[in-house]
Protein backbone atom coordinates (compact mmCIF):
# COMPACT_ATOMS: atom_id res chain seq x y z
CA UNK A 1 0.00 0.00 0.00
CA UNK A 2 1.44 3.38 -0.99
CA UNK A 3 1.26 6.74 0.76
CA UNK A 4 -0.89 7.98 -2.12
CA UNK A 5 -3.43 5.18 -1.55
CA UNK A 6 -3.59 6.06 2.16
CA UNK A 7 -4.11 9.74 1.42
CA UNK A 8 -6.88 8.83 -1.05
CA UNK A 9 -8.51 6.74 1.69
CA UNK A 10 -8.28 9.69 4.08
CA UNK A 11 -9.88 12.04 1.51
CA UNK A 12 -12.76 9.57 1.12
CA UNK A 13 -13.17 9.30 4.90
CA UNK A 14 -13.24 13.09 5.32
CA UNK A 15 -15.71 13.45 2.42
CA UNK A 16 -18.02 10.81 3.90
CA UNK A 17 -17.80 12.40 7.35
CA UNK A 18 -18.76 15.74 5.79
CA UNK A 19 -21.63 14.00 3.95
CA UNK A 20 -22.83 12.56 7.26
CA UNK A 21 -22.87 16.05 8.79
CA UNK A 22 -24.71 17.36 5.73
CA UNK A 23 -27.35 14.64 6.16
CA UNK A 24 -28.03 15.80 9.72
CA UNK A 25 -28.77 19.29 8.34
CA UNK A 26 -31.19 17.73 5.85
CA UNK A 27 -32.91 16.17 8.85
CA UNK A 28 -33.40 19.64 10.30
CA UNK A 29 -35.19 20.61 7.07
CA UNK A 30 -37.77 17.91 7.80
CA UNK A 31 -36.89 15.03 5.49
CA UNK A 32 -37.88 11.49 6.45
CA UNK A 33 -35.96 10.37 9.52
CA UNK A 34 -35.85 6.80 8.23
CA UNK A 35 -34.14 7.81 4.99
CA UNK A 36 -31.67 9.99 6.89
CA UNK A 37 -30.92 7.20 9.38
CA UNK A 38 -30.35 4.71 6.56
CA UNK A 39 -28.01 7.17 4.85
CA UNK A 40 -26.04 7.82 8.05
CA UNK A 41 -25.62 4.08 8.70
CA UNK A 42 -24.63 3.32 5.09
CA UNK A 43 -21.97 6.03 5.28
CA UNK A 44 -20.74 4.57 8.60
CA UNK A 45 -20.47 1.14 6.94
CA UNK A 46 -18.55 2.58 3.98
CA UNK A 47 -16.15 4.40 6.32
CA UNK A 48 -15.59 1.20 8.31
CA UNK A 49 -14.88 -0.66 5.04
CA UNK A 50 -12.26 1.91 4.00
CA UNK A 51 -10.53 1.74 7.40
CA UNK A 52 -10.45 -2.07 7.22
CA UNK A 53 -9.33 -2.37 3.61
CA UNK A 54 -6.85 0.52 3.47
CA UNK A 55 -5.64 1.49 6.95
CA UNK A 56 -5.77 -2.10 8.26
CA UNK A 57 -4.67 -3.46 4.85
CA UNK A 58 -7.29 -6.19 4.40
CA UNK A 59 -7.63 -5.35 0.70
CA UNK A 60 -5.52 -8.36 -0.33
CA UNK A 61 -7.74 -10.92 1.43
CA UNK A 62 -11.09 -11.53 -0.26
CA UNK A 63 -12.11 -13.88 2.58
CA UNK A 64 -11.57 -11.37 5.38
CA UNK A 65 -12.95 -8.47 3.36
CA UNK A 66 -16.19 -10.43 2.85
CA UNK A 67 -16.25 -11.64 6.46
CA UNK A 68 -16.01 -8.09 7.82
CA UNK A 69 -18.49 -6.82 5.20
CA UNK A 70 -20.98 -9.45 6.40
CA UNK A 71 -20.38 -8.81 10.10
CA UNK A 72 -20.51 -5.01 9.91
CA UNK A 73 -23.36 -5.10 7.37
CA UNK A 74 -25.33 -7.38 9.71
CA UNK A 75 -24.59 -5.12 12.67
CA UNK A 76 -25.77 -2.02 10.78
CA UNK A 77 -28.91 -3.80 9.53
CA UNK A 78 -29.77 -4.86 13.09
CA UNK A 79 -29.07 -1.31 14.28
CA UNK A 80 -31.40 0.09 11.63
CA UNK A 81 -34.09 -2.46 12.54
CA UNK A 82 -33.95 -1.48 16.23
CA UNK A 83 -33.98 2.20 15.27
CA UNK A 84 -37.02 1.63 13.03
CA UNK A 85 -38.89 -0.24 15.79
CA UNK A 86 -38.32 2.67 18.19
CA UNK A 87 -38.99 5.45 15.72
CA UNK A 88 -41.96 4.12 13.77
CA UNK A 89 -42.97 5.22 10.25
Amino acid at each position, binding site marked *: *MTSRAMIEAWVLL*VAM*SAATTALTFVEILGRSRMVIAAGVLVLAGLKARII*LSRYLQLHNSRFWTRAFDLAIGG*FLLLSFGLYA*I*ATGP
Partner: protein
Amino acid sequence: MSGTLGKLPSDRQARDEWGVLGELPGDLMMWVLIISELLVFGAALIAFLAVRASDPQGFAADQLLLDRTEGAVNTMVLVTSGLCAALAVIARENGRRRTARGWLFAAGGLGVVFLIVKAGEYWSKAADGIGIETSPFFTFYYLITGFHAAHVVAGIVILALVAWADSVRNMETGAAFWHMVDLVWVLLFPIIYLLR
Protein backbone atom coordinates in the same frame (compact mmCIF):
# COMPACT_ATOMS: atom_id res chain seq x y z
CA MET B 1 0.77 -7.23 1.29
CA SER B 2 3.51 -4.71 2.03
CA GLY B 3 3.33 -5.45 5.76
CA THR B 4 4.65 -8.97 5.22
CA LEU B 5 7.61 -7.87 3.11
CA GLY B 6 10.95 -8.30 4.76
CA LYS B 7 9.76 -11.05 7.12
CA LEU B 8 11.75 -14.26 7.48
CA PRO B 9 10.89 -17.02 4.98
CA SER B 10 9.91 -19.31 7.87
CA ASP B 11 7.40 -16.70 9.02
CA ARG B 12 5.93 -16.53 5.51
CA GLN B 13 5.84 -20.33 5.31
CA ALA B 14 4.05 -20.55 8.67
CA ARG B 15 1.50 -18.00 7.44
CA ASP B 16 0.85 -20.11 4.33
CA GLU B 17 0.12 -23.07 6.60
CA TRP B 18 -2.43 -21.07 8.62
CA GLY B 19 -4.84 -20.84 5.67
CA VAL B 20 -7.14 -17.82 5.83
CA LEU B 21 -5.66 -16.78 9.20
CA GLY B 22 -2.37 -16.29 7.36
CA GLU B 23 -4.09 -13.73 5.13
CA LEU B 24 -4.48 -11.32 8.05
CA PRO B 25 -1.76 -8.67 7.84
CA GLY B 26 0.49 -8.01 10.85
CA ASP B 27 0.26 -9.73 14.21
CA LEU B 28 -2.47 -12.40 14.54
CA MET B 29 -3.00 -11.65 18.25
CA MET B 30 -3.77 -8.02 17.40
CA TRP B 31 -6.53 -9.27 15.08
CA VAL B 32 -7.93 -11.40 17.92
CA LEU B 33 -7.99 -8.22 20.02
CA ILE B 34 -9.53 -6.14 17.20
CA ILE B 35 -12.34 -8.66 16.62
CA SER B 36 -12.93 -9.00 20.39
CA GLU B 37 -13.17 -5.23 20.80
CA LEU B 38 -15.54 -4.92 17.83
CA LEU B 39 -17.79 -7.58 19.39
CA VAL B 40 -17.79 -5.81 22.78
CA PHE B 41 -18.57 -2.37 21.33
CA GLY B 42 -21.07 -3.91 18.88
CA ALA B 43 -22.94 -5.62 21.74
CA ALA B 44 -22.96 -2.38 23.76
CA LEU B 45 -24.36 -0.40 20.82
CA ILE B 46 -27.04 -3.02 20.13
CA ALA B 47 -27.98 -2.92 23.85
CA PHE B 48 -28.16 0.89 23.61
CA LEU B 49 -30.54 0.68 20.63
CA ALA B 50 -32.64 -2.05 22.28
CA VAL B 51 -33.12 0.04 25.45
CA ARG B 52 -33.81 3.08 23.25
CA ALA B 53 -36.74 1.15 21.74
CA SER B 54 -38.37 1.07 25.20
CA ASP B 55 -38.17 4.88 25.62
CA PRO B 56 -37.58 6.60 22.26
CA GLN B 57 -38.86 10.00 23.44
CA GLY B 58 -36.61 10.03 26.50
CA PHE B 59 -33.57 8.99 24.48
CA ALA B 60 -34.34 11.60 21.78
CA ALA B 61 -34.66 14.36 24.40
CA ASP B 62 -31.35 13.42 26.02
CA GLN B 63 -29.62 13.04 22.67
CA LEU B 64 -30.51 16.66 21.84
CA LEU B 65 -28.20 17.67 24.72
CA LEU B 66 -25.17 16.19 22.91
CA ASP B 67 -23.00 18.39 20.74
CA ARG B 68 -22.89 16.85 17.25
CA THR B 69 -20.29 19.37 16.10
CA GLU B 70 -17.79 18.21 18.73
CA GLY B 71 -18.45 14.63 17.67
CA ALA B 72 -17.96 15.50 14.00
CA VAL B 73 -14.72 17.34 14.80
CA ASN B 74 -13.48 14.30 16.70
CA THR B 75 -14.33 12.07 13.71
CA MET B 76 -12.10 14.24 11.48
CA VAL B 77 -9.37 14.21 14.16
CA LEU B 78 -9.39 10.40 14.48
CA VAL B 79 -9.47 9.60 10.74
CA THR B 80 -6.58 12.04 10.25
CA SER B 81 -4.61 10.44 13.08
CA GLY B 82 -5.30 7.07 11.42
CA LEU B 83 -3.71 8.42 8.23
CA CYS B 84 -0.65 9.53 10.24
CA ALA B 85 -0.31 6.04 11.78
CA ALA B 86 -0.64 4.40 8.34
CA LEU B 87 2.00 6.74 6.88
CA ALA B 88 4.28 5.91 9.83
CA VAL B 89 4.15 2.21 8.94
CA ILE B 90 4.89 2.90 5.26
CA ALA B 91 7.83 5.16 6.20
CA ARG B 92 9.23 2.49 8.55
CA GLU B 93 8.86 -0.24 5.91
CA ASN B 94 10.91 2.00 3.61
CA GLY B 95 13.59 2.39 6.29
CA ARG B 96 12.80 6.03 7.10
CA ARG B 97 12.77 5.67 10.90
CA ARG B 98 12.82 9.36 11.82
CA THR B 99 9.93 10.12 9.45
CA ALA B 100 8.02 7.14 10.84
CA ARG B 101 8.47 8.42 14.40
CA GLY B 102 7.30 11.87 13.31
CA TRP B 103 4.08 10.40 11.87
CA LEU B 104 3.55 8.36 15.04
CA PHE B 105 3.90 11.46 17.23
CA ALA B 106 1.46 13.29 14.94
CA ALA B 107 -1.01 10.39 15.31
CA GLY B 108 -0.60 10.39 19.10
CA GLY B 109 -0.87 14.20 19.22
CA LEU B 110 -4.19 14.06 17.38
CA GLY B 111 -5.26 11.40 19.88
CA VAL B 112 -4.57 13.94 22.63
CA VAL B 113 -6.68 16.51 20.70
CA PHE B 114 -9.50 13.93 20.58
CA LEU B 115 -9.28 13.48 24.36
CA ILE B 116 -9.27 17.26 24.99
CA VAL B 117 -12.45 17.67 22.89
CA LYS B 118 -14.01 14.69 24.70
CA ALA B 119 -13.02 16.10 28.12
CA GLY B 120 -14.63 19.42 27.15
CA GLU B 121 -17.79 17.54 26.24
CA TYR B 122 -17.85 15.72 29.59
CA TRP B 123 -17.07 18.98 31.41
CA SER B 124 -20.01 20.81 29.82
CA LYS B 125 -22.34 17.93 30.69
CA ALA B 126 -21.11 17.94 34.30
CA ALA B 127 -21.62 21.71 34.44
CA ASP B 128 -25.24 21.13 33.40
CA GLY B 129 -25.64 18.58 36.19
CA ILE B 130 -25.69 15.62 33.80
CA GLY B 131 -23.99 12.49 35.10
CA ILE B 132 -23.90 8.75 34.50
CA GLU B 133 -27.05 8.20 36.58
CA THR B 134 -29.10 11.01 35.04
CA SER B 135 -30.94 8.68 32.62
CA PRO B 136 -30.47 5.36 30.79
CA PHE B 137 -29.30 7.32 27.73
CA PHE B 138 -26.52 9.03 29.66
CA THR B 139 -25.55 5.78 31.40
CA PHE B 140 -24.91 4.24 27.96
CA TYR B 141 -23.34 7.47 26.68
CA TYR B 142 -20.78 7.65 29.49
CA LEU B 143 -20.03 3.92 29.54
CA ILE B 144 -19.58 3.51 25.78
CA THR B 145 -17.79 6.78 25.01
CA GLY B 146 -15.75 6.50 28.23
CA PHE B 147 -14.66 2.97 27.34
CA HIS B 148 -13.72 4.20 23.88
CA ALA B 149 -11.77 7.14 25.37
CA ALA B 150 -9.89 4.64 27.56
CA HIS B 151 -8.88 2.83 24.35
CA VAL B 152 -7.66 6.15 22.91
CA VAL B 153 -5.46 6.61 26.00
CA ALA B 154 -4.15 3.04 25.62
CA GLY B 155 -3.55 3.69 21.91
CA ILE B 156 -1.50 6.81 22.62
CA VAL B 157 0.67 4.82 25.06
CA ILE B 158 1.09 2.03 22.49
CA LEU B 159 2.04 4.52 19.75
CA ALA B 160 4.67 6.01 22.11
CA LEU B 161 6.01 2.52 22.87
CA VAL B 162 6.32 1.51 19.21
CA ALA B 163 7.98 4.85 18.40
CA TRP B 164 10.65 3.78 20.90
CA ALA B 165 10.82 0.05 19.99
CA ASP B 166 10.36 0.78 16.31
CA SER B 167 10.65 -2.53 14.48
CA VAL B 168 8.38 -2.85 11.43
CA ARG B 169 6.32 -5.53 13.17
CA ASN B 170 5.88 -3.46 16.35
CA MET B 171 4.85 -0.43 14.34
CA GLU B 172 2.34 -2.45 12.28
CA THR B 173 0.85 -3.88 15.45
CA GLY B 174 0.62 -0.52 17.24
CA ALA B 175 -0.91 1.15 14.17
CA ALA B 176 -3.45 -1.70 13.87
CA PHE B 177 -4.63 -1.03 17.44
CA TRP B 178 -4.96 2.66 16.60
CA HIS B 179 -7.00 1.90 13.47
CA MET B 180 -9.30 -0.31 15.58
CA VAL B 181 -9.96 2.71 17.85
CA ASP B 182 -10.73 4.73 14.71
CA LEU B 183 -13.02 1.98 13.34
CA VAL B 184 -15.02 1.75 16.57
CA TRP B 185 -15.56 5.52 16.60
CA VAL B 186 -16.98 5.67 13.03
CA LEU B 187 -19.60 3.09 14.10
CA LEU B 188 -20.22 4.52 17.58
CA PHE B 189 -20.60 8.19 16.62
CA PRO B 190 -23.62 7.92 14.28
CA ILE B 191 -25.53 5.56 16.58
CA ILE B 192 -25.12 7.55 19.79
CA TYR B 193 -24.99 11.10 18.40
CA LEU B 194 -26.86 11.13 15.10
CA LEU B 195 -29.74 8.62 14.93
CA ARG B 196 -32.76 10.61 16.13
